[in-house]
């Protein structure tokens, strides 16, 4: 096995061992060791909750994130291109940006009640701002020479958007999409703790409330971490596309 795989694996094994040793030396603690947590994950799988909760969380993230994406990209492009629009809208964006999406939970529940829509709304908000701002900034960063060349060749507006504007911002946009998806995944867990009764966030709260099942609490945490990594790896794959690699510093 190559060193690039061996070292991370060693790191994980050492961490798991340290965890087990710490738990074994404090038998009174409620925190379970890795084997108990693994059994917890097995139990969730056997009860059919594993797939159900993972799907529920991914379902909310998908809808919230995609809705945000569909609105943020055209909005960001328009704001990036139209200086006056940016001057009008940017202060609002900047004001909303430092507000944690979680601060919207009471309003989400007020508007949409307890249920999927509230959770999706929170994920939507969490993804919308970073995607919009990143798109806008990416448009500002386009090399003016490329825009001038596109104008010179007199290509129609639609082609100018699809063949110049979008590919020019794509490298930066993919990075923003990755970050936004990470935030969306953070937010779904929090939203599920409050607004719904399924999903990995709900699992964590429910396991604690229903009899201090800390093995399931940590099982939920581990699952959240693993799925987060998988989502990030999927987004990273896009950075390797031939048509965007120019936008990243040479390796």
């Amino acid at each position, binding site marked *: 096995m190559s060193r690039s795989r061996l070292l991370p694996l060693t790191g994980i094994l050492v961490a798991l061992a340290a965890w087990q040793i710490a738990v074994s030396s404090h038998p009174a603690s409620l925190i379970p060791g890795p084997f108990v947590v693994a059994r917890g994950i097995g139990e969730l799988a056997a009860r059919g909750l594993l797939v159900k909760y993972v799907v529920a969380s991914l379902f909310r993230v998908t809808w919230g994130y995609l809705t945000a994406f569909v609105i943020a990209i055209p909005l960001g492009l328009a704001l990036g291109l139209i200086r006056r629009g940016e001057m009008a809208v940017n202060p609002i964006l900047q004001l909303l940006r430092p507000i944690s999406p979680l601060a919207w939970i009471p309003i989400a529940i007020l508007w949409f009640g307890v249920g999927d829509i509230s959770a999706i709304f929170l994920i939507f908000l969490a993804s919308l701002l970073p995607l919009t701002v990143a798109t806008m900034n990416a448009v500002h960063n386009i090399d003016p020479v490329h825009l001038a060349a596109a104008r010179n*060749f*007199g*290509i129609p507006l639609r082609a100018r958007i699809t*063949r*110049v504007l979008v590919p020019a911002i794509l490298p930066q946009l993919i990075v923003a999409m990755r970050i936004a998806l990470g935030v969306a995944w953070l937010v779904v867990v929090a939203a599920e703790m409050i607004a719904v009764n399924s999903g990995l966030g709900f699992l964590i709260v429910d396991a604690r409330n229903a009899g201090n099942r800390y093995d399931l609490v940590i099982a939920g945490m581990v699952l959240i971490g693993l799925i987060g990594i998988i989502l990030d790896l999927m987004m990273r794959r896009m950075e390797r596309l031939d*048509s965007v*690699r*120019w936008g990243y510093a*040479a390796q």
Partner: protein
Amino acid sequence: MKVQFSGISMRFGAMDALQDVNIGVEEGEFLCILGPSGCGKSTLLNIAGGFLTPSKGSVTIDGETVTGPDRRRIFVFQERGVFPWLTVEGNIGFGLFDLPEAERRQRIAQYVHLVGLEGFEKSYPRELSGGMKQRVEVARALAVNPDVLFLDEPFGALDSITRLQMRSELLRIWRAEKKTVLFVTHDIEESVQLADRVVVMSARPGRIRRVVDIDIAHPRDLSSRRYIELRDLIFGEIGLAHQV
């Protein structure tokens, strides 16, 4: 006259970038605009390209006043003008959006061949050298069959050997394609090697000091008496003693 500059003046704030520039360019002529940095030569080219509007005066091409960029006259920037997200093929075919696919393919192949980039059709600009990128940009410009080419210090970022090769390449293409070329440079040798006429400009405000006819047939012998005479004439005109 193919291109006519009439009474062009350009102010940027309090700075006079150009003052009363008048010059005509003949069809098929290779005109070099030469001057020190900040003499407004690039501004002048951008005005002709339709990217800037002069404060006074106008440019006409075929008797038509220039009001904006036009695909009949293509501007070639330094090599960074190529689109990094498109392959060599994609770049060269960029302006050919209104051609049927078969004709587009054929035209791309023709210009890939003209600039000698066979085998690199599917390469991305990041995989090419500076000189190759510059070839891609020239091919992209020529592929739409413009009648005027504007080149703004196109070889400025290349090493001196590649620059020499690119010059003879450009001359070969110019003779094959018979375009009117306006070429901006701050390199005296370059202007004498390439141009039919050299417009020597002075700085702040930018205006024409002198127009020098380069009456040497191509290919030019860079050690001929006439070449050295003309080169020294321009050196003198710019106020440089020809000594290092």
